[in-house]
């Protein structure tokens, strides 16, 4: 992980991202009728940057489907995930434990960066994206990167 090369700004962005999650989860009230972005904490949140592009992501419920259907998984990330795991990223492979591809906070954050970039500039390799340490939003504890993310992003 190239954490030393990260700008200080991305850590502040991640802190604010997590603070927003905390406020929403701790004040969630069903009777207001307001649709909550977060009812419960995600297990992990992370920040990442590429050049001046910065983004945060979180692990989340049914993320595979959400990424593909709502955010649309960027082709570069889709291909990298498929190559690393031999699994189509929009599919959950049942079994115990099931295989999850594209569900991590890293995928979400990197996907946001790739989508923000659009046609501007090119990333030749996903390991050019620099990540903060993964954090548990409830407590700010550090977490480890999973094996799939290491394969895809390191």
């Amino acid at each position: 992980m190239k954490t030393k090369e990260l700008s200080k700004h991305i850590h502040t962005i991640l802190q604010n991202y997590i603070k927003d999650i905390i406020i929403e989860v701790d004040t969630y009230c069903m009777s207001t009728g307001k649709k909550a972005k977060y009812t419960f904490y995600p297990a992990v949140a992370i920040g990442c940057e590429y050049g001046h592009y910065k983004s945060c992501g979180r692990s989340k419920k049914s993320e595979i489907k959400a990424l593909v259907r709502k955010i649309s998984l960027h082709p570069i990330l889709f291909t990298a995930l498929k190559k690393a795991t031999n699994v189509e990223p929009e599919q959950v492979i049942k079994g115990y434990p099931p295989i999850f591809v594209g569900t991590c906070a890293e995928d979400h954050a990197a996907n946001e960066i790739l989508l923000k970039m659009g046609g501007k500039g090119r990333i030749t390799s996903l390991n050019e994206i620099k990540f903060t340490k993964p954090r548990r939003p409830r407590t700010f504890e550090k977490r480890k990167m999973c094996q799939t993310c290491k394969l895809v992003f390191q």
Partner: protein
Amino acid sequence: MNTYLYEDVVNLDIDWYCIINNRLVHVASNAGQIPKNFYSIKDLEKIHSIVNRLPKSSEVITNEEWIKTVVTEYYEQEDATFQEKIDLYTRSFVQKAQKGFISFDRVYEFESSDQYHIVAAPVDVVNADDKKYYDLRPLLLEYNIKDFDFSMSANAIDLVNIINEQ
């Protein structure tokens, strides 16, 4: 019933609640499993919503020994003091204890075995049949578990399996 699936809970740190031996229990799932045949997603969200609105009226005791272990192992922010790290870790659990819940966290290292520790609890015993839990109690699943140890010095327990066996 629309419940959380395995592929959902591994990505979430869900707050789940129940009553064990007439004591209110809160658990942070920390990407671990939740008991089988538990609440629907909607019911769990409703319970969470009601708990958020409960007053903070209990004095709280924390599991200092366990908290120090976690903070030493999982925090590295150089700009925060040890006490600030403790506050970061305990914030969510203390909030629940102030509302009368004995608050558990999942031990992260034991990913497959789902072990839980008490992090915070009310100083005085709070019973689930207290009138301030009038709206909440009918929604909570209740368990009577023989010899369940609520003491801070208790070893980590396999809470989900214990409940599944009831």
